[in-house]
């Protein structure tokens, strides 16, 4: 009797604690998601949720080559962003975990410093750097490396990749840093006792054990950048229109909400596939045991 009392108390406490989470998940996330899914199967007849359902939006998305093309472009751009972010983040995380010592607090502070300004300001800052009369062109002309400013840095996918890789760097640095930090030092000591070179112990111990951090960081960068629309709109020019821009246009100028919702649902499916692939990769290469 006594123990049962404790059990029900515990259950009540647990239920109370999970209430906010449940409310947020059901009220804000799942309900909103359900609205988007329903809207995706409506036609653009003025009424939003009342009326017949139809597959026509989905048929358009899968039969019209444009959407596959823009989706592939988005995957390609955010794939490049992920690659650039992880490659540049790894050395920083490695330094933080093994070499920073007393300066770790300072370096971590510097890593998170860009978050002190709004994302939009960081996009504009890159515009200032990459523009025709911007910092990069002016410096190159001053150094005599070229004599007329180049328009090659802005209004193309490269500008989008550079800006996003910079903006998302902390999202990759932190998980890799955590993964590196939890590697037991005894393993590295054992490796050097057994005569492994530093390159060998990196390849055989550090890299495999940090893979969960790398994959986690990659996912955290890859998923939100696929749907990004501000950066391509501001810096990308016509050649880097991404799926987020198309979705935004349907809810704005093109004035076809159901089709925008259908594009959003299709994008979620693609992201789901990407996440499933990463989980598969994690099972194969990421596991620690």
């Amino acid at each position, binding site marked *: 009797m006594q123990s049962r009392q404790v059990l029900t108390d515990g259950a009540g406490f647990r239920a109370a604690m999970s209430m906010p989470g449940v409310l947020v998940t059901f009220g804000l996330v799942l309900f909103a998601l359900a609205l988007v899914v329903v809207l995706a199967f409506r036609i653009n007849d*003025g009424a939003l949720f009342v009326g017949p359902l139809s597959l026509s939006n989905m048929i358009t998305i899968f039969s*019209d*080559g*444009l959407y596959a*093309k*823009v989706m592939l*472009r988005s995957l390609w751009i955010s794939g490049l962003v992920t690659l650039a972010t992880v490659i540049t983040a790894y050395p920083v995380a490695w330094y933080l975990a093994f070499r920073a010592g007393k300066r770790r607090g300072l370096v971590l502070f510097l890593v998170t410093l860009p978050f002190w300004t709004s994302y939009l300001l960081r996009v504009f800052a890159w515009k200032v750097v990459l*523009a*025709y*009369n911007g910092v990069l062109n002016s410096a190159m002309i001053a150094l005599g490396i070229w004599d007329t*400013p180049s*328009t090659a840095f*802005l*209004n193309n996918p490269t500008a989008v990749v550079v800006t996003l890789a910079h903006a998302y760097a902390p999202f990759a640095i932190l998980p890799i840093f955590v993964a590196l930090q939890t590697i037991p030092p005894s393993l590295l000591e054992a490796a050097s006792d057994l005569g492994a070179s530093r390159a060998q112990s990196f390849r055989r111990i550090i890299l495999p054990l940090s893979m969960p951090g790398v994959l986690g960081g990659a996912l955290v960068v890859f998923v939100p950048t696929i749907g990004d629309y501000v950066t391509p709109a501001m810096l990308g*020019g*016509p*050649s880097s*229109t991404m799926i987020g*821009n*198309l979705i935004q*246009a*349907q*809810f*704005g*100028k*093109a*004035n*076809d909400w159901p089709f925008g919702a259908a594009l959003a649902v299709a994008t979620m499916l693609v992201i789901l596939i990407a996440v499933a692939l990463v989980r598969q990769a994690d099972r194969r290469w990421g596991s620690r045991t």
Partner: protein
Amino acid sequence: MNPKTLLLTSFTAGALLTGPALAEDKLNYFTWSGYELPVFHEAYTAAHPDALEVSVFGDDDDAFTKVKSGFRPDLAHPCYDKIARWNAEGLLQPIDTARIPNWDHIFPVFRNLPDIQAGDGKVWMVPWDWGNTSVLYRTDMVAPDADMSWNMLWDPQYAGRLATIDAVHDTPLVAAVLAGVNPFDMSESDLEKVADKLREQRPLLTTYTTDMTSVEQSLASGELVAAMTWNASAVALKAQDVPVEFMDPKEGMLTWTCGFVMLKDTPNTDLAYDFINSRLEASSGKHLIEDYGYGTSTDSAFAAVPAETLDELKLPADPQKMLETTIFTGPMKQNDALAKMFERIKAGG
């Protein structure tokens, strides 16, 4: 904290957070960015200090979808070609011209626009501003024998040095003119011709944008050779001594007019009428002409500006004269189809 204080505190916090939305004694005005300046409604501010909230948009198609999805200003400022569309959604209420003392100063050409008539001395829109859309180009960077035509924005020799306006009533309208079809009523095959013209232009452009400040900066730095802009950009760059000219294309500039519409169910009709009337004062219009180079709908404002200034700005004191040589941006019957097609082409379709 007892339950009563808790309730009270949360109410206060809620009221603070949602304050502006609840304020019923302030006029909420939704306008093009740059058109919210206090110099345009000094009489209103004098009569009702601190009774105005402003939100801005960069394109009136975006403004339309925002209002359609539930944003409720009291007054909005779309352009004439969109009025039928706003009306079809039942968003507007008729404006009684008898309550606007300055109504009679509006040029007849604007007063008599067909789509604004609501019958019985009432209108759907009170015209306020008008202006032109054309090619703004660097005189020192285009070929000396350059043809004064909209085709400059399609000229491959300026590839990567051109920009255009991201709005259905601008770029696709011009594409239709160049493709030789009637922009205001198109058949399926006409739409396809316009699409081809737009596809031809896309690889040459650095950007489709409504951010005129960026376009002006790029023209000033020499990154852009030519761009589609409105009068105000020409005025701004000339004031900075950038060698630019606002083209008078042989196909004709685009002339547009915009004005005030009153949203249905606004609780602030009295403030709205005062606001509209103050914007039609001669002194307001004078600022619009002299600072931005746009025309106003009122003859009194034109009378207040010296003739030399008007000459310099190429603004005839009688807009009727302007309209004889330009293309008036009226409602486009296929606006929705054109908008969808334009979005496709921008994305590379």
